[in-house]
């Protein structure tokens, strides 16, 4: 019986590092008990993490597939599972299963293109996987622009990596912004959608958006005003999930299940679905 692999039965994972990113976001490094990466994944895919007795929840894998040693999850404290995780220490075991969902088309539609990543808050987590994948295979892509905003400078995720690695890469432009003026911040101040419009990007690129629904809505409108078509703009959705494999029935938007048909969607594809997300 047990020879039939059961997708709902997870593997054991161990938290080997906890990085405090912001007051409410931590990044957890997870490997198997023998120190290996639990499974391979593609940029934009997700995994189910659980703590027995607490619950199981879906998270985007924030590390890139090019990292073959471990997986990372940037997790905002906002519910039962996440609150428990935020109290976890190094060495704590969790359970992990996946990978789930469709990745961003990094080797197809993105190949050879200029890329624009727009993220708000913890919305950077799923995009970091794609960004680092594209940085790893730098010569496969054109110019890369990254617009990232948060409430304050303390709420910027992966700040050190952004400043020390992304911003120093050849052909990568990072545009950071925070919602309100703050002491010690001499960068841009203002909401992400407005900043995207101000930056007046050429339409010769593919855009990838992730953040709060309101940010996505206005950023898309801004990009359209700049001349972008919906076929050039991607996002990744998040809905409540239990199984992760299209069977438990709760993450559907129309006939599509976010866990298996998404989470990555192009905006023209979303237009075909009811606005129930």
């Amino acid at each position, binding site marked *: *019986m*047990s020879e*039939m*692999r*059961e*997708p*709902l*039965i*997870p*593997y*054991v994972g161990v938290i080997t590092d906890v990085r405090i990113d912001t007051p409410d976001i931590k990044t957890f490094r997870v490997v198997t008990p023998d120190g290996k990466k639990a499974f391979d994944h593609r940029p934009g895919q997700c995994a189910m993490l*659980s703590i*027995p*007795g*607490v*619950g*199981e929840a879906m998270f985007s894998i924030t590390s890139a597939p090019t990292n073959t040693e471990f997986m990372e999850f940037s997790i905002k404290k*906002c*519910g039962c599972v*996440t609150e428990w995780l935020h109290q976890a*220490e190094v*060495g*704590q*075991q*969790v*359970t992990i299963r996946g990978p789930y969902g469709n990745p961003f088309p990094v080797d197809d539609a993105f190949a050879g293109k200029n890329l624009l990543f727009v993220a708000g808050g913890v919305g950077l987590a799923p995009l970091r996987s794609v960004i680092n994948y594209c940085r790893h295979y730098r010569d496969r892509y054109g110019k890369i622009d990254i617009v990232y905003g948060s409430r304050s400078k303390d709420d910027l995720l992966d700040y050190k990596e952004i400043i020390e690695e992304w911003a120093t890469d050849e052909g990568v432009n990072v545009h950071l912004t925070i919602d309100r003026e703050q002491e010690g911040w001499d960068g841009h101040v203002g909401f992400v959608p407005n900043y995207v419009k101000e930056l007046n990007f050429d339409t010769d690129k593919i855009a990838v958006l992730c953040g709060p629904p309101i940010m996505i809505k206005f950023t898309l409108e801004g990009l359209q005003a700049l001349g972008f078509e919906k076929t050039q703009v991607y996002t990744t959705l*998040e*809905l*409540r999930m*239990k*199984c992760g*494999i*299209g*069977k*438990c*029935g*709760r*993450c*559907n*938007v*129309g*006939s599509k299940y976010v866990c298996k048909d998404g989470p990555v969607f192009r905006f023209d594809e979303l237009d*075909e*679905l*009811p606005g*129930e*997300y």
Partner: protein
Amino acid sequence: MCLKGVKRMRKCALANLDKLFAAIAENADLYLPVNDENGAASYKKWEEGTEMSDALNTVKSPKDFFFPQSEDLMTFKTEGKNIEITDIREESKDFVVFGVRACDVRSFDILDRVFITDPQDSYYASKREKGVIVSMACTRPTETCFCAAFGIDAAAPKGDVTTWKTEADLYLQANTEKGEKLLAALEALTEEADCAAVEAQQAKTRAIMEKLPLAGLDTEQFGGGKTKEYFDAPEWKELSQSCLGCGTCTFVCPTCQCYDIKDFNTGRGVIRYRCWDSCMYSEFTRMAHGNNRNSQLERFRQRFMHKLVYYPENNDGIFGCVGCGRCLAKCPISMNIVKVMKTLGGKKDE
């Protein structure tokens, strides 16, 4: 259907039915519909003296046999920071479900397309593999029946074995290898039969079917690709207005397959189990940061759009309803899929 020369028809005198059940129960657990003191039927394990119910259908559908209302999936032991996962799956026993109606037989095909498509759900699949479905043709379809709308013939149910109960005999015909095997084991208790009695019964049943109030229910207007046509229909408001969100319809429904996964801490370990859930419940899609189906209208719409549009869109046009009529009989406010279909489809028959 009774196919002369293609499938062999066997029969067993009703007087010998107990012997037949005993013979089946020798090799497998046998379940059949049994009436309670109020005449409500539910599947019970056969034992000496168990009387099979003549009820048109069981209160709860037989989906339980493959997708139990609650089912343990795995257990965990935690010690300090460590977790041990135990796969508690066991080899399912052989079992026979006897007397399944045509509508419920179709529901297994609908569930199969959810659970057995890649990645396969092994909990469901292993029970499906071990279970033998013995269906029974209906003879007294009633006013809540509308299986014919989904192309189901109540007089010729599918399943591994089809049976027809006449005044004097039980006629049996195998449809699958599993069914052949079961009938082969019962050879001594059955005899070769012709189809005359079965055909006569089928003709009678079909004549009743044609006259049922829901006989003309039109499904043509629904199906895949109709999301835009119906999603924003103003009719949803009125249809869903009285819905209590009690979830009874989903629990008696043979095709509703949504489930929840929960952990139960026993004090000595954690059991992770799954149980039926309902898209009619407000918690169903609630997340830490909000709910994408906040109103009962949205939840109500989801259930019917799923059965009439989304499911067929993903499954070659097959509807996610079998017309068993349980929801018609059980909804406390008398709202149901038939009313939804008629209202959305142009207020027919009103």
